[in-house]
């Protein structure tokens, strides 16, 4: 019982040690003079590549994002049925293949509908 918690403890110590040591390595190397220490604003930024954030994070999003979110959720859901089928393709045989084919065909009609109605465009 305690031994099992012991493993967790070891993991915890490793994790803490790792997170402390990794940021310290460059500092140590810098002190030893092994790496160059030229400073510039880009290097000092939060993100080395990419842009600085502008404004606060709690802004109201354009509600068009919801359209894409809804479409994503709907088409994302197809994997939940495909996965159990994919796990046992051979066992389910031709019947399963036909069933999944019909399922996908219906989804494609939904996709066609969204496409023709312009739901995929940002306007």
């Amino acid at each position, binding site marked *: 019982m305690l031994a099992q918690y012991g493993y967790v403890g070891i993991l915890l110590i490793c994790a803490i040690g790792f997170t402390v040591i990794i940021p310290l390595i460059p500092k140590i190397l810098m002190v030893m003079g092994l790496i160059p220490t030229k400073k510039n604003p880009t290097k000092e930024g939060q993100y080395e590549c990419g842009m600085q954030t502008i404004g606060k994070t709690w802004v109201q999003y354009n509600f068009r994002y919801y359209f894409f979110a809804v479409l994503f959720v709907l088409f994302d859901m197809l994997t939940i049925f495909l996965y159990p089928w994919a796990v046992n393709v051979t066992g389910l045989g031709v*019947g399963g293949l*036909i*069933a999944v084919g019909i399922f996908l065909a*219906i989804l494609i*009609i939904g996709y*066609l*509908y969204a496409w*023709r*109605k312009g739901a995929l465009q940002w306007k």
Partner: protein
Amino acid sequence: MIMEHIQFIAPEISLLCFALLIVLLDLFITQKRVLPVLSVIGAIVAATFIIVIWNTPPVGLFDKMISIDPFGLFFKLLILAATVLVILASHNYVLKFNKFQGEYYALLMLSAVGLMLLVSAINLITIYVALELSSISLYALVSFLKDKKSSEAGLKYLILGGVASAILLYGMAFIFGLTGNTCLTCIAEYVRGMPFKDLQEVPALMIGLVLIIAGFGFKIASVPFQMWVPDVYEGAPTTITAYLSVASKAAGFGVIARVLMTVFGLPVWLHNDWAMIIAVLAAITMTVGNLVAIVQTNIKRLFGYSSIAQAGYMMVGLAAMGLTMGTKENVTGGLIFFLLSYTLTNLGAFIAIIAISNKINSDEIEDYNGMIKRSPLLALGLTICLISLAGLPPTAGLIAKIYIFSGAVNMGLAWLVVIAVINSVISAYYYFKIAKAMWLGTPVTEEKVDASWPEWLALAACVVGVLALGVVPGLFMNLTTAAVRIFGI
């Protein structure tokens, strides 16, 4: 292994194919008048398939997921009839959302597919999926007008419907946990084999039973799950209100009757318990519906409360049906006959209302004043339907009520029948309030009100049906008795 039974679900498959075809066609054609024709053809094709398989002996298909039996087939025909009548009645109404006709008809048919699967489902999973297929289509249809009222009604329907289905699912989870099965007949076997004498000894079964009754109670609009009805009925497009009030309610009663009768039908103590719950709910439901209906001024809202009251009468039939299990009495066609009569009557009334309110752009009862002078036939049709709803001769409503009440008295529910009769008298007051406004009121304008030919056709079909059921009920009683015989009563 799937293919050999495919003909038994051909009605649903064909209806689904037509719905998808309508969605696709709507994307590519500009002549939208083809769409209702296609949807009516789809419904007729489905009905033909049903008649072809009508005489097959009851059978459970696809690992006991779907059952084909006279009970389910009867309800399927009823739902298809309601769908066709609603499509006919939508002829002028759809012009309000001209751009979205395709979606309207497709969603209506998808909802019909869901309801048809619902009444023949014999597995908890199929019941849930079918229920949600119809409900989700209806959520979208209720908010179809996209104005303030309609979208608000849609949101209320969605949230309350979602809560109701979560409650239903929780009940199903308990039943599954108790029995380890989701197929109704397997659960029934387990329940019959239990060594108990009282519901309190099996808390899981009690929780499951109560939660399932609550969940289906939403669909059939029984107290305490009736509060969505008036709002949704008022806000929804009138055609969808008509559909909700008949097809959705009929299927709800179909599935609740099937679940209660097969799963909880025997042993005797069990059906006595739930029949009593249903009986008490019935008494409260019809009283609440009738009393609140009296003060309504909006006709759609009034019909909302009226449909709550009617659900109360139907629950009297359901309670009697439960008590009949295991006895030799033969009273149980009452509920089915009442549903048939109610479907025709309420649809007839709504078709007249759709035609009138489409012209005068108002749902207030006072705007119906003197309608007899502006459109004698529409007013006459609406009056006949109102007479039938109130339960007076020579219409279907009277026979249905006698049938259902006499059955209940035979099963010892005399107290409930007394309440129901008092309620019928109260209901006559507000039904005749509308009739009085139409026949004796002075019209605001002399402008004539007319309907299009599909609306006339639908109204005529309903009125003829109401009168036929009232004059020669014997023809249909055999049908309704045959429908319930599968429960072994």
